[in-house]
C-alpha cells in the first residue's frame, strides 16, 4: 500500500539529468515560489570531492562507475549487439556526469527524415522552430565553437570561441582537404571553472558542463524553497484520474523501502530514452490498457542510436612526439552530414579523442628505463578517424520491459535491434571513404570496422509526432490525449541525426519550459495549495 504525500506540487519532474534540471531552473527563475518535486532513481554522487579526483587520476576510476547497467540489466536480444556497459549513468545529473560535452546542432533536414527518405520519422517541429532555443542552449551550456562555421544555419555566433586544433590534428586536417572533406572545430560545452571533481572522465582541463553544478545552485538558493530533490527514488507508476488527467506519481523510497504517491498539477518525465517509455508502459490503468500514451503501441519502438565507424592507421615513427593533449577531439567534419547523404545514412566525422597516445606512466610502472621510454614515445604512432553513422528508426527495433528489477529498483530492459543489408552496405561504403583519409595521410591501414550501437545516444523510444497514431508526444512534448503529462528526453526525438543529442535535448527543454511558463500564466499555480 502506497503512502500519500502531504502536498500537491506545481510540478513533479522525474529524472535529474540535463532536461529535468534545465526545466526546473527555468521554472524557478520565472517564479521563485514554484513548487517542484524532482525524483531521481540513482544516488547523489559527491562532486568537488578530492578523494574522488585522486582516485580518478591514479586508478582511472570514477565515482559513478557502479551506476552503469550490467549486461543482464539491459539485455541485447537482436541480431546486432546493443552495447550496455559504460553507456547510462543512473545518478543525479544523469548523462552530464560522464558526457564528452560535444555540443552540436542537428541540421534542418534531420527534422524531415521521413519526408526526405521514406524512413524513420518526421519531427512535428522544424529546425527554425528550434533555432533560437539552440542558441539559448549554447549560452546556457557555454558552448565553445567556431563563429565562421556554417554547418547548421545560425543567427548568432557561438557564445565562446572554439578550442583550436591540436598539432596532432594536422596530418588528418590535410588529408581531409585532399579528399574533399572540410575540417571543422568541435563545438564543446567546456568553459566552466574546473572543480577537479573526479567525475570529468574526459577532461584534462576546459571543464565541461555538468547538470549537477546547476542543480546544486538551485538547491542552495534560499528563494527556491519550494524545490525539492529526492534521490534513490525510482518512479514506478504514473496514476491517472481520467484518460486526460494525471494526478500522481508513485515511487519507491529506497532508503526506507516505502512506496509513496506524490501529487502535482503537471508531470514532466525526463528520465531518458530507456526509463521514460518504461515508466509509461508500466502505468496501465482503466483508461490506458497498454500503458499511458501507448494506445498505438509505439512506446519503446523505433529505438536508434549511433553506430561508430572506425578506421585506424599507423606510421612507424612519431618524430614530433605527438599525443592527443586534450582528452577530447578538436577536429571534426560534417561534410558528409548533408541532405545528399541522408538516404544512405549521414556520418559525422571526427578524430579519435585519445590517439595518438603514449601512456608514459605505464611504461615507467613496467620498469622501462628513461632511454626505453624515450624510444617508445618517438616510435610507432597510431591515429584513427571515427564517425557516428545515422540510424533510422524501425517499428520492430524496440526496447521492452523484462521481468525483474535492477539495483536501483528500475525494471530490467531488453533491446531488440537489427539492421538491413542495405544499411550494412552503406556502413561499408562510409568506411571506404574514411579509409581514403588514412591512405592520404600516408599511414598503413590497421583496420576499418563498424562498432555496435549502444545506449549512449538512444533516441526514438517515445517519439513526438503530429498525431497519436505516429507518436507518443505532440509538438509541445505533451503526451497525446493528456492535459498535464509531458516527456522530455532524447526518447522523443523522431530521428537521431549523425551528431550527439544533448544540445538538442537542452534546446527542447528550454522550449518546453517556455511552453509551461506560458501555461502557468493562465493557471492557478503557486497558491500553496494543500492536498485535500
Amino acid at each position, binding site marked *: 500500500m502506497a503512502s500519500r504525500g502531504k502536498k500537491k506540487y506545481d510540478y513533479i519532474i522525474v529524472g535529474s539529468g540535463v532536461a529535468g534540471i534545465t526545466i526546473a531552473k527555468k521554472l524557478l527563475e520565472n517564479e521563485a515560489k514554484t513548487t517542484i518535486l524532482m525524483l531521481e532513481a540513482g544516488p547523489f554522487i559527491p562532486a568537488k570531492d578530492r578523494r574522488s579526483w585522486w582516485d580518478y*587520476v591514479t586508478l582511472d576510476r570514477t565515482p559513478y562507475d557502479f551506476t552503469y547497467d550490467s549486461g543482464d540489466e539491459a539485455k541485447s536480444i537482436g541480431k546486432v549487439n546493443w552495447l550496455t556497459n559504460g553507456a547510462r549513468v543512473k545518478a543525479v545529473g544523469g548523462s552530464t556526469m560522464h558526457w564528452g560535452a560535444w555540443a552540436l546542432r542537428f541540421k534542418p533536414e534531420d527534422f524531415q527524415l521521413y519526408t526526405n527518405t521514406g524512413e524513420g520519422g518526421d519531427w512535428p517541429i522544424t529546425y527554425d522552430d528550434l533555432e533560437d532555443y539552440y542558441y539559448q542552449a549554447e549560452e546556457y551550456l557555454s558552448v565553445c565553437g567556431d563563429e565562421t562555421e556554417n554547418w547548421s544555419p545560425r543567427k548568432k555566433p557561438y557564445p565562446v570561441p572554439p578550442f583550436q586544433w591540436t598539432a596532432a590534428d594536422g596530418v588528418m586536417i590535410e588529408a581531409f582537404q585532399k579528399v574533399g572533406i572540410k575540417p571543422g572545430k568541435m563545438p564543446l560545452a567546456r568553459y566552466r571553472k*574546473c572543480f*577537479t571533481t573526479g567525475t570529468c572522465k574526459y577532461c584534462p*582541463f576546459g571543464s565541461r558542463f555538468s547538470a549537477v553544478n546547476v542543480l546544486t545552485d538551485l538547491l542552495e538558493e534560499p528563494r527556491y524553497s519550494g524545490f525539492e530533490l529526492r534521490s534513490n527514488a525510482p518512479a514506478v507508476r504514473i496514476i491517472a484520474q481520467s484518460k486526460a488527467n494525471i494526478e500522481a506519481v508513485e515511487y519507491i523510497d529506497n532508503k526506507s523501502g516505502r512506496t509513496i504517491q506524490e501529487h502535482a498539477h503537471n508531470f514532466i518525465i525526463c528520465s531518458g530514452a530507456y526509463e521514460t517509455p518504461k515508466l509509461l508502459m508500466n502505468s496501465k490503468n482503466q483508461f490506458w490498457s497498454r500503458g499511458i500514451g501507448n494506445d498505438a503501441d509505439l512506446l519503446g519502438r523505433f529505438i536508434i542510436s549511433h553506430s561508430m565507424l572506425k578506421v585506424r592507421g599507423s606510421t612507424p615513427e612519431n618524430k*614530433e612526439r605527438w599525443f592527443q593533449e*586534450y582528452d577530447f577531439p578538436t577536429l571534426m567534419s560534417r561534410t558528409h552530414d548533408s541532405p545528399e547523404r541522408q538516404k544512405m545514412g549521414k556520418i559525422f566525422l571526427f578524430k579519435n579523442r585519445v590517439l595518438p597516445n603514449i601512456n608514459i606512466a605505464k611504461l*615507467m*610502472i613496467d620498469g622501462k628505463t628513461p632511454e626505453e621510454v624515450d624510444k617508445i614515445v618517438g616510435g610507432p604512432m597510431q591515429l584513427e578517424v571515427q564517425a557516428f553513422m545515422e540510424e533510422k528508426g524501425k517499428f520492430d527495433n524496440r526496447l521492452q520491459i523484462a521481468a525483474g528489477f535492477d539495483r536501483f529498483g528500475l525494471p530490467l530492459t531488453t533491446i531488440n535491434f537489427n539492421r538491413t543489408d542495405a544499411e550494412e552496405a552503406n556502413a561499408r561504403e562510409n568506411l571506404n571513404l574514411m579509409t581514403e583519409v588514412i591512405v592520404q595521410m600516408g599511414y598503413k591501414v590497421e583496420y576499418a570496422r563498424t562498432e555496435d550501437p549502444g545506449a549512449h545516444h538512444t533516441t526514438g523510444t517515445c517519439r513526438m509526432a503530429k498525431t497519436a497514431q505516429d507518436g507518443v508526444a505532440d509538438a509541445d512534448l505533451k503526451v497525446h490525449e493528456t492535459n498535464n503529462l509531458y516527456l522530455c528526453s532524447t526518447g522523443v526525438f523522431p530521428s537521431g541525426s549523425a551528431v550527439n543529442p544533448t544540445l538538442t535535448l537542452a534546446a527542447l527543454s528550454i522550449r518546453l519550459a517556455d511552453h509551461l511558463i506560458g501555461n502557468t500564466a493562465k493557471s492557478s499555480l503557486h497558491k500553496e495549495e494543500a492536498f485535500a
Partner: protein
Amino acid sequence: MIGGIVCNETVDSGMLVGDGQLLSHADREFLWRVFVKIGETWRNVRYESSNLKSSWLEMLAAKSGVAPSYTAEYVNAVRVVQELIDMYGDDAFRKLFLDNHIPPGPPVTRLAHAKKYVINEFIIMQVMASGFKHFGGKNYAGYVKGSRYNEVPLVREYRPITGMGAGEK
C-alpha cells in the same frame, strides 16, 4: 624477487586496512624522499620535484584521510623501502623501480603491495603533475592548468602556415 624478510612476507592481496590511522610526519617525509627518487631515476622533473610537493601532500591527505584509507599501505611501503635501502644502499631504488622481479598477478607480498598501492600511484601522479613534459607535450590527461585563455597555448596547436602538422614545441 628482491628484498628480505619484510619485502617477501606474505600478506592478503586486498588493500591493507588502515582506516582511522594517521600517517606520521616522519613516514610522510620518508615517502616524499621515495617520490623524489622517481624523478631522479627517470630524469623527468625539475627542481628535485619540489614544485610538486604541495600537490603530492594533498594527494596523500585525500588518500589517507578518507575511507578506504591508504595509511596502512603507506606504512607498509616505508618498511619495505627501508629494508631495500638497508640491503642495497644506493642501488635500492633502481632495483625497486626497474628490476624488482615482482611476479605478475595480485600483490601477495609486502613488496608487491608497496609497488602496486604506493609506487605505481606515485608514478602516475608524478607523470600527470608535469613529469610528462620531459617526453613532449604541454598537456596530459589529468593535468590541470587553469584557464584555457592563457596567452600561451596550453597544448601544441596546429600551425598550417609553417607546414604540415608543424606544432609549437
